[in-house]
């Protein structure tokens, strides 16, 4: 038989139970309750002792500038409007957008930095809320990638390869560890657009796709409209009670079919319809935030009551984490500040800083940060030189693959530190370089998965998330 479900073990159990057609949701639920642990439901299980049971990846699409947020370069002030030395650029290729630029004038951050927490971690004034969690954060300043344009870079970050077709991290995690909640998908994607006027980079359904892995591992995009999951609501005129009876009718037909043909797929289909029915209840319950207290909304900020905002999605991320969803990926668009960077990044931070901090705080208070890995960052960095003309308070920055900053917090992460260093121009990594493959290897490690052993054979080759690269970055581990 070939069980197909968000959880293999789930349908396997169900099949063994030889459930007759038309079994009610309650009966099914009780079937799983006693076994609702990762070990029982997982497809593969861990290679190493896991620190994290789930990941919340706060993807900042469009590439936030490391210079204004994390990579403090006080000496750059003296370099204002001077040309970037060729020795620093050292043959780095340019995008089509600045290739024609005659000079590369250095521009320092328009925003100030200060030390925060007991650890004294340097953070920008743009992140006052996140800064309260300085001692939880491990800021990796030495991340680097090969890709120089958004689509290939985001695809590399998420799938280990610049060209589409491979599974996203969340799909690998779901393939490797299965689900902890029989009523919800193991991998959920939530997307928000910037509130400001910035140019929002488009995304792609395949970014949360399962590539060559079976599509049951693909991320399910939760929308902000009437149906958080596509086609979740019954059509007008069909009540939940009626739906239950209709599914019983279908199950009766399927049971007759199964008795005649004995195709295990028929049984699997009965299971899928039961799960669909349970999702019809579980997803609206998840998305219904009306029961949250006023103080919670206050904490996430004024946008958190508006569905589809980053703030609302952070709140949903906490609710998903509470319900055992394995991989929760948020995307906030709008970080591509080729021009008007100072105002653009400020508006992006307005969208993201407070809700991010609220999420960290809530996870910590509810004991979830212990087994949740939170990652915040984009797909590459930005150039120290200005794209277009430069003035003290207005400039832009082009794409920069050689260094960028992300932070990790939570399960198994050594907080309160900046890991890795860049040169005085935040242009090249000078200490402890971390490739995106290394970041992925480390995140898998924290989930208890060995990135060299989590493989899937496709076209004759054993593929990995980290391709043939990657090493676990020990320095960021607690």
């Amino acid at each position, binding site marked *: 038989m070939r069980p197909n479900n968000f959880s293999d073990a789930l349908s396997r159990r169900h099949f063994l139970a030889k459930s007759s057609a038309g079994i009610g949701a309650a009966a099914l639920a009780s079937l799983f309750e006693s076994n609702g642990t990762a070990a029982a439901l997982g497809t593969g299980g861990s290679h190493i002792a896991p620190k994290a049971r789930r990941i919340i990846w706060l993807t900042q699409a469009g590439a936030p500038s490391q210079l204004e947020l994390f990579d403090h370069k006080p000496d750059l002030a003296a370099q204002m409007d001077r040309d970037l030395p060729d020795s620093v650029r050292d043959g780095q290729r340019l*995008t089509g957008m600045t290739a024609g630029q005659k000079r590369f004038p250095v521009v320092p951050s328009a925003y100030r930095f200060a030390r925060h927490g007991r650890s004294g971690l340097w953070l920008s004034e743009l992140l006052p809320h996140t800064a309260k969690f300085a001692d939880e954060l491990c800021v990796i300043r030495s991340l680097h990638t090969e890709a120089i344009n958004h689509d290939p870079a985001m695809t590399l970050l998420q799938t280990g390869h610049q*060209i589409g077709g491979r599974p996203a991290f969340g799909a690998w995690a779901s393939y490797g560890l299965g689900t902890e909640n029989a009523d919800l998908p193991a991998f959920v994607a939530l997307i928000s657009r910037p509130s400001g006027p910035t140019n929002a980079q488009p995304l792609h359904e395949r970014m949360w*796709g399962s590539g060559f892995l079976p599509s049951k591992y693909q991320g399910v995009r939760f929308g902000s409209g009437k149906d958080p999951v596509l*086609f979740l609501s019954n059509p007008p*005129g069909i009540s939940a009670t009626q739906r239950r009876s209709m599914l019983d*009718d279908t199950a009766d037909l399927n049971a007759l079919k199964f008795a005649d043909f004995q195709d295990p*797929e028929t049984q699997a289909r009965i299971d899928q319809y039961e799960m669909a029915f349970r999702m019809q209840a579980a997803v609206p319950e998840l998305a219904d935030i009306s029961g949250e207290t006023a103080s919670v909304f206050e904490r996430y900020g004024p946008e958190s009551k508006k569905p589809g905002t980053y703030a609302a999605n952070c709140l949903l991320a906490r609710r998903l984490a509470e319900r055992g969803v394995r991989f929760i990926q948020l995307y906030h668009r709008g970080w591509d500040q080729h021009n008007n960077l100072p*105002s653009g990044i400020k508006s992006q931070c307005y969208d993201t800083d407070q809700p991010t901090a609220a999420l960290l705080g809530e996870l910590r208070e509810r004991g979830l940060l212990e087994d949740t890995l939170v990652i915040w960052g984009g797909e590459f960095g930005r150039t120290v030189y200005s794209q277009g003309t430069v003035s003290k308070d207005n400039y832009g920055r082009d794409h920069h693959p050689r260094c960028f900053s992300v932070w990790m917090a939570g399960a198994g992460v050594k907080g309160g530190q900046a890991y890795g260093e860049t040169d005085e121009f935040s242009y090249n990594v000078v200490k402890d370089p971390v490739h995106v493959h290394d970041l992925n290897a480390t995140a898998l490690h924290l989930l208890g998965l060995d990135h060299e052993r989590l493989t899937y054979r496709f076209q004759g080759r054993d593929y990995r998330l980290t391709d043939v690269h990657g090493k676990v970055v020990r320095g960021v581990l607690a």
Partner: protein
Amino acid sequence: MRFVPVSLFASYFALRCSVSFAAEAVSFNRDVRPILSDACFHCHGPDEKERKSGLRLDVPTEAFKPAESGARALVAGKPAESELWVRLMSEDPEDAMPPPKTHKKISESQKQILFKWILQGAKYEQHWAFVPLQPVPPPQVKREGWARNPVDRFILARLEAEGLSPSAEAPREALLRRVSLDITGLPPTPSELDAYLQDASPGAYENAVDRLLASKRYGERMAVDWLDAARYADSNGYQVDRDRELWAWRDWVIEAFNRNLSFAQFTIEQLAGDLLPNPTLSQKVATGFHRNHMLNEEGGVIAEEFLAEYTADRVETTGAVWLGQTFNCARCHDHKFDPFSQREFYSLKAFFHNLPEKGVGNYGASIRLNSPPFLKLPAPEVEAKIAGLQKQVTEANLRLAEKGVTASAGVEDWVQRFLAGAVKWDVVEVVSASGGDQPPRVDAAARLVEVGPQETRANTLVFKLKIPNGPVSALRLECATEAASASFLWSELKVFSDVGAKGKEKKPLKLRAVVEGKSIAALEAAKVLDNDRRTRTTLSAKPDAPASAVFELESPMAIGSNSDVDLEVELGVENAGGPSRWRVFCTSAASELLVPSALVAAGQKEAIKRAKVERDQLAEYHAGLDPEYRKLNDETTRLKKSLSEAEAEIPTTLVMEEMKETRPTFVLIRGAYDKPGEQVQAATPAVLPALASDLPRNRLGLARWLVDPGNPLPARVSVNRFWQAVFGTGLVRTSEDFGAQGEAPSHPELLDWLAGEFIRSDWDVKGLLRLFVTSATYRQSSKFTQPLLERDPSNRLLARGPRFRLQAEFVRDQALVAAGLLSDKIGGPSVRPYHPPGLYEQITAGNGTNQYVQGKGEDLRRRSIYTYWKRSVPHPGMLTFDAPFRESCTLRRPRTNTPLQALNLMNDPTYVEAARCVAERMVKEGGATLEARLVYGARLLLARNPQAAELGVLQRAYERNNKSFQSDPAAARALLAVGSQPVDGGIDPAELAAYTAVVSAVLNSDEWITKE
């Protein structure tokens, strides 16, 4: 040589001695190669750079040589002297093979195989897929009578060898539904079913097969798989993902299947139709096959990088589709498992590297999005429209020229007048200003408005002005800056006046863009007067060079009212631009005095010293002062615009083309576009039959080489894929990989026999399918039995017929057929059926082509192959049922079973509407009784009569739903209102809703989405 501990060998031998080593011959291809390939070739295989210790195990001459250490990996007949065996058995982590760090493991039974193989002489065989095709006689079988054609003899011989028997033939209804779905992707209609059931002739089934093969629906069904292989989509992919036009190629494929073009010709025309002698339009359109790859239009793209991507895609797709080889593995280094070098990859690339293509999309082009090379397609109606417009433009030009001659008398007098009369501009007093991202600041003394950075798209700024008493003939708007530079995207201008207005209501002034002094060109300034925010102009200002635009009032007016505000100026600005300072000026100067500075300069010259271009400019400008001339001129401009719009309506299609000069091709070191190595020439891989010397070294030569009967791969790979389409799994399960890491065929002789037949029949695709579906193998019942489930759960031995879920496209098509809605229109631009709202907006860029504008009428009812395919957001109904993204070649779709599929079939308006339309047919066509109607419904949906137990389920379902809807008529009406098909008012709504719910229960059943 290393000392071999005798004990190791002896103990192994003793342990395994019960196994008869000599009795059963080990086959290298079947038994040994898969083990070596998986565990050893990575370091001891074709890739020279990765090779460890100089040992190569995939080639016998190398494997028997002493390695660098002097040790011999293989000594025929002597495992104990073979280093391979010794290292395999070693428990020392330093020595053990494969090294523990590779995580590769060799099982005990695999060790036995290797042991036996060495003992039996370590004989190598050529990889099965590369072995030339030999005639294969169909085998003898015991149950001669069962076989209907040679296919069956191969299948039966294997079943008999395994001690299994085939299943009984499927019931006639089931068989007709199965074969209809396989050949046309659609179920039989009740009348087709009746006709077939009534046909008692011995050839009834074969006749039905022939009818289906002749149906136009056949080409649409076959094209679905080919579109996956060719990575067809209606958008360019990557980040920007704007539309492209390639549907003419898709239609070519459908038509080629329908006219049963030989697969050899199908291959040649798609790879090189343009290089055939005197190619037809159709043959050129066919070459769109290799323009289906993605195209990156992202702003920062480096053309060279993506040119390398597109050409590699063509090599990989060709390799997968025709050769079943994973050439992508040889892009950065020699292939790890199969005998293809990196150099050979680039030699293949040289065939596809000679297109006049640019590597990046033309992001600036707003209308024609196809990236060259492309062809214009014939479009008689549009062409007629163009011819008509061209005629009108010619006539209008003539009239304009005539008028121009009369209007240009008196140029010199006018020149003297404007030279004498300077235009005096007065700065207008600003009363207040509002709007925009930040409130504008009014500097009353300087009479200017300071505007902060505007970033919100579509902002509107409003200035209220007080004009000095006196007549006003024109206004000038000036944008200045103190920043190093600033540019403003200005989309709209509206000016309201309270002069002559009654009460508070202000009337809009009619304006006309003109040029005075150094103001911006009139055509540019006119963009803000057209009530269309999409057309806009850019004002670029510097501290010493403000930008200005001048507008003449259609009728001059006299100001002198007593109100606080005379004029209200509304500026529409689009998201861009730094801080700026605005002033508004007015003048009372006569229209003829408002002249561009260039003309002033020309006018200042003596008449005879003016250049011709200057004379013409003066004459034209002067003519433009005449309102009648202007009217004619506007008319001509309008006609020209219509003409260029009509020209853009001509459909185009992407094609291949060769450049005259061959573009050199280099090995790219580690696959990096900017690291060219050795130059290579177009050539085919050495392990395959040579490219004949009389074939050209271009795409045409390559295509002819692919379909040369001496090349065993294309025929093997193709018949396997057609087999997969019908039986669900290929004879080679890994239909995309016939290499060492792929799976060996389940029935190698059958595969070769079919490949030979395919070539012999001149690559007759319909003939091949007919052979499959008329075989006894195909006609078996698809019921599982417990013993078979245990012995052969995935039905590789084919002791029963195929049973599996339908492809995404056919799930939806089936619903439309049953509902009587399916349009039979073939081809044309893709259409946009029902689609959940908001799906695009969340993730796509904000430009116009990224809105999903749902179609109407017939567009909602076309076959799914015509559904618009956007790569970044493929139609959810497709994706949910395992359709690929179409970003790269896909030769095998997975078949999953998920709750999202259940939700789709339960609640998507497509299926809710279809269920209601089936219900209407049941009531209107099914008869008078409940039972008759339910039986008819089953025949519409499942192409068979329901069994008694099923009928019982349906009856109870109807009674229950009817009761519920009778008591809640509003719910019934709400359900019936889903979709766009009008509801039949003659049927009781509760009754119809109840039937709809019953149909929906069937639409969600396992059988309905399964080919059985």
